[in-house]
């Protein structure tokens, strides 16, 4: 068991290392980092100090390690727009993003998983077909289209809800709904197919033939086995919360991390971009680790020492 976690932790660290390397490589390839991070208008002494701090006059290997060191110490540069540290800028936007993505996650899980399970258990029924249609829609309708459609209907035509900004709790309804419904549809479809695959297995039929009531078969056999792939995909959704929020925040002018990223990319505000990139990597890796941890509980095969991975 310990070995299992050590491996997973190693892999997580490796991913972070790769992301930092990716940022480093891309940064170096695209021009003079000092100018890019500090901005062309920065005074020459600031640039020189930056160069010194980041060791930009030293060989590339040293620079690489220094880069790591700097990141670890939280020195991620300053935003070009207002000169404030990138980390501060990003950090102050995180609550806004969470205000959207966490409720959305609840919708995805709370709506998607039960819908998927129900659809699998009542195959061919009206709900099953509805779930499949919704799932397809969730996949093919991009979030910005869904967002704009909702704005068109609710904000423009019906005038019930505001279309942008962050002034009141009402402003959060449409963005949360957009995020949640799309993800719920995908999760529903996924859960449905995972359940269907398990329900088709021999041991389910055996349990049922033994006389175990169907409800118990589902609860004790089908659901726990379906939990494993479902947990994986929920973990992935958690890890990509920020990525999902990028478009929605932009459409609704919601001042969160996603919107910050878009603006930063447009302005080539590299310190901020770099910071968000690392934040996403961290989120992803952490949620994967938690998922792996949960695996250990959910899948007894992983608990035994001699089980082959």
């Amino acid at each position, binding site marked *: 068991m310990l*070995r299992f976690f050590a*491996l997973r932790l190693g892999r997580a660290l490796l991913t972070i290392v790769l992301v930092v390397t990716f940022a480093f490589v891309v940064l170096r390839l695209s021009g003079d980092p000092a100018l890019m991070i500090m901005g062309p208008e920065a005074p020459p002494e600031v640039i020189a100090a930056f160069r010194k701090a980041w060791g930009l006059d030293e060989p590339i290997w040293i620079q690489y390690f220094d880069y790591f060191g700097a990141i670890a110490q939280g020195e991620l540069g300053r935003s070009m727009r207002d000169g404030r540290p990138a980390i501060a800028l990003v950090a102050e936007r995180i609550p806004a993003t969470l205000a959207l993505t966490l409720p959305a996650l609840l919708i995805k899980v709370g709506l998607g998983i039960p819908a998927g399970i129900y659809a699998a258990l009542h195959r061919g029924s009206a709900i099953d077909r509805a779930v499949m249609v919704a799932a397809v829609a969730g996949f093919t309708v991009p979030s910005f289209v869904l967002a704009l459609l909702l704005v068109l209907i609710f904000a423009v035509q019906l005038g019930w809800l505001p279309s942008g900004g962050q002034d009141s709790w009402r402003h959060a309804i449409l963005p949360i709904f957009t995020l949640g419904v799309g993800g719920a549809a995908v999760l529903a479809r996924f859960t449905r197919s995972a359940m269907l695959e398990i329900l088709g297995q021999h041991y389910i039929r055996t349990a049922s033939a033994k006389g175990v009531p169907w409800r118990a078969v589902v609860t004790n056999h089908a659901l726990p086995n379906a939990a494993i792939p479902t947990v994986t995909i929920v973990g992935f959704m958690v890890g990509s919360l920020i990525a999902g929020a990028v478009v929605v925040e932009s459409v609704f002018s919601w001042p969160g991390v996603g919107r910050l990223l878009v603006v930063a990319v447009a302005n080539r505000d590299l310190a901020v971009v770099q910071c968000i990139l690392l934040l996403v990597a961290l989120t992803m890796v952490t949620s994967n680790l938690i998922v792996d941890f949960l695996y250990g509980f959910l899948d007894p095969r992983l608990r035994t*020492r*001699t089980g082959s991975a």
Partner: protein
Amino acid sequence: MTAPLVQARGLKKIYVTRRGLFGRLSHVRAVDDVSFEIAKGETLGLVGESGSGKSTTGRLVLGFETVDGGEAKFDGAALPAIGSDAWRAQRARAQMIYQDPLGALDRRLTILQQVREPLDIHSIGDRAGRDQVALELLRSVDLSAEHGRRYPGELSGGQRQRAVLARALATRPDFLVCDEPVSALDVSIQAQVVNLLCDLQAKLSLTMLFISHDLRVVRQVSQRVAVMYLGQIVETGSADDLFAEPLHPYTRALVSASPAPGRRSATRIVLQGDPPNPANRPSGCAFHPRCPNAMPKCRVEQPVVSQPNATRSVACHLYADGEAGRSAA
């Protein structure tokens, strides 16, 4: 006397496995000090259970895997390194056919295309004539042009194995290793394919190493037979001699288990104990836990190979002092 075509001397092949990431290493001696020779035009049968190392021996002798000890020679020369140009060129002279013909064939190409392929690979003959040659090859294994137009999935097991055989013979190899070629076929089809092999053997003066666990088939095809147990050869001799008068207790058990008409039906010898596991070799003589004639010496010392007469050899303590065939109860 001309030099033998295939020579194996002290062949060893060890597989190293590790239990888990930090577990102990375990060495599996798949082939342990195997020596034999095959003369030109001769067929040597290699008999044994699964886990005896016979398939591995076949692969070592062809140079499909590297030996961990000893050496194998083909036509007097050492085997070239795997994957080298010389190795690839040698493929035209030495080939192997396996138990599963469907796995060895590409489902997307017709039989004719696949039988023709070795000619393309080794650039034999001119391009225009290769289809003709391939058709000839098909005919030599009793497959028609119609069969050639079909895909592997559309043929029966016996037909597929014959197609594989045709492909293996495309480059007119001198040496053919057959690794359980008929084990997956129905018994009636087995007979057809085995008869075909015998015919081809005679017509093309093929040198063959015929690997199987089925004694009756081996007997039909081979002139000489070697019996393997847990990576070692325990007995060799001519096919007739071996079956008429098996020396090694293991051979005796094998022979008694396979019915043959005209032989006095002796009581069947049933081996006790666990089937052989190469990962867990018994000490001394590997067969001693199951041997009905085991002596205290057998647990401690590995038997040396002795030759009761010119054409037989056996590795057993019962014959260790050179006496010929001490009969056991």
